[in-house]
């Protein structure tokens, strides 16, 4: 057996400390004295089941330790008695996450927050990136269409678009006229993406605009937009094989940014797209 002081304790001659005895075997040995850590674990339900009997036997034989364990239990009661009432209070307005979410439209509050809000209020643990949407049909069919278009056209070397990015003004005017809302091709140069161009596609209830961007290294992102029946600004993430997509709806138009499986990169691009569209009021 090895006697070691609890980590960090200062040692002075003449003092008596509680020592932690390091076990050299993983098997529970009833002859090994119960350690300080095990007393705490016992009270906190962190003790392996096979050791409980040993601890209880130890406590029966060591009244000072039993007294400490009792004091910890009553300490817990005192904490709960003093503070549980706060957890029982109705959540005040300033902590009302639904209200925090309805701030004037900004990236932070509009798109991401509604998703987080629903999640936190729902009380789940863990986050599934492709979790259930509030109205699956609206999100899913939109995103599926957009991803289909993304996959179809990003592999095109010679004809990825109808109208090239060099004719940006014409592209925007043409798509706006055909689609019926203000179609803008966001400027994404700050994130290393140039506009390859765009085309018109059939959307779920009418025409859809489709824009493609490309980096110097050849990574491609597409922006698909069509009329959406959902008015919310919730953001959803979808993944399908080697492609990822972020979808949101804003003022009657649904937007899908599609790209590769690098989620952070996708979010970075989508954030910029969102900000640009917000700025231009489109």
């Amino acid at each position, binding site marked *: 057996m090895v006697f070691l002081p*609890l*980590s*960090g304790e200062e040692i*002075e001659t*003449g*003092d*008596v*400390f509680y020592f932690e005895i390091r076990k050299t075997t993983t098997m529970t040995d009833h002859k090994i004295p119960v350690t*300080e*850590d095990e007393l*705490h*674990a016992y009270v*906190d339900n*962190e003790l392996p089941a096979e050791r409980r009997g040993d601890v209880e036997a130890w406590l029966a034989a060591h009244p000072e330790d039993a007294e*400490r364990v009792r*004091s*910890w239990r009553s*300490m*817990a009661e*005192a*904490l*709960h*008695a*003093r*503070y*549980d009432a*706060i*957890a*029982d*209070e109705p*959540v*005040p307005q*300033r*902590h009302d*996450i639904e209200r*925090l*979410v309805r701030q004037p439209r900004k990236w*932070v*509050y509009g798109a*991401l*927050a509604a*998703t*987080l809000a629903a*999640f*936190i209020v729902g*009380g*789940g*643990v*863990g*986050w*599934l*990136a492709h979790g259930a949407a509030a109205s699956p049909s609206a999100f899913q069919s939109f995103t599926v269409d957009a991803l289909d278009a993304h996959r179809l056209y990003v592999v095109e070397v010679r004809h990825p678009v109808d109208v090239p990015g060099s004719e940006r003004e014409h592209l925007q005017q043409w798509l706006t006229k055909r689609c019926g809302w203000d179609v803008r091709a966001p400027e994404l140069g700050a994130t290393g993406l140039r506009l390859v161009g765009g085309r018109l596609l059939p959307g779920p209830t009418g025409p859809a605009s489709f824009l493609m961007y490309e980096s110097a290294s050849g990574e491609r992102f597409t922006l698909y937009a069509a009329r959406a029946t959902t008015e919310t600004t919730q953001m959803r*993430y979808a993944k399908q094989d080697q492609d990822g997509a972020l979808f949101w709806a804003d003022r009657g138009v649904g937007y899908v940014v599609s790209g590769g499986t690098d*989620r*952070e990169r996708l*979010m970075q691009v989508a954030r910029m797209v969102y900000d640009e569209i917000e700025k231009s009021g489109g």
Partner: protein
Amino acid sequence: MIPALRRYARALARDADIADDLVQDTLVRALRSERLFLGGDVRSWLYTILTNLNKNRRRSLARRPHFMPLLDNNPDASGTEAEGRDIARALATLVEEQRSVLLLVMLEGLSYREVADIQGVPIGTVMSRLARARAHVKASLEGEAPALRRVK
């Protein structure tokens, strides 16, 4: 999740206004964070943000003496009120990390593993802080000098 967060904040920061500010700041930060898409335990993540915000808040406070309100200005206080003051006072004698560990384990019911992740330390350190926190609070509740750690 938010009611429990409010409870932890109140016990950690003691002052109700500061506690509520901490919770609001935590929620705002959470809403801004992109960690949303990277998965993980949202509950632990919220506790982590709040714990760190409180640490930063305390670091930026100028060092000044800690003034306690005179306690017995209401001698007819019920037993439970007095006990509430006692546990709050006992918590105040703890250093930040020990108070945080004690609350996360005993009040919020998190596992040692979760607390280790929240504090960014090994489980052994969590246990060492917990042991000390319990010893100090016990001593405080029993009216002994809080610094007493050794039995001579």
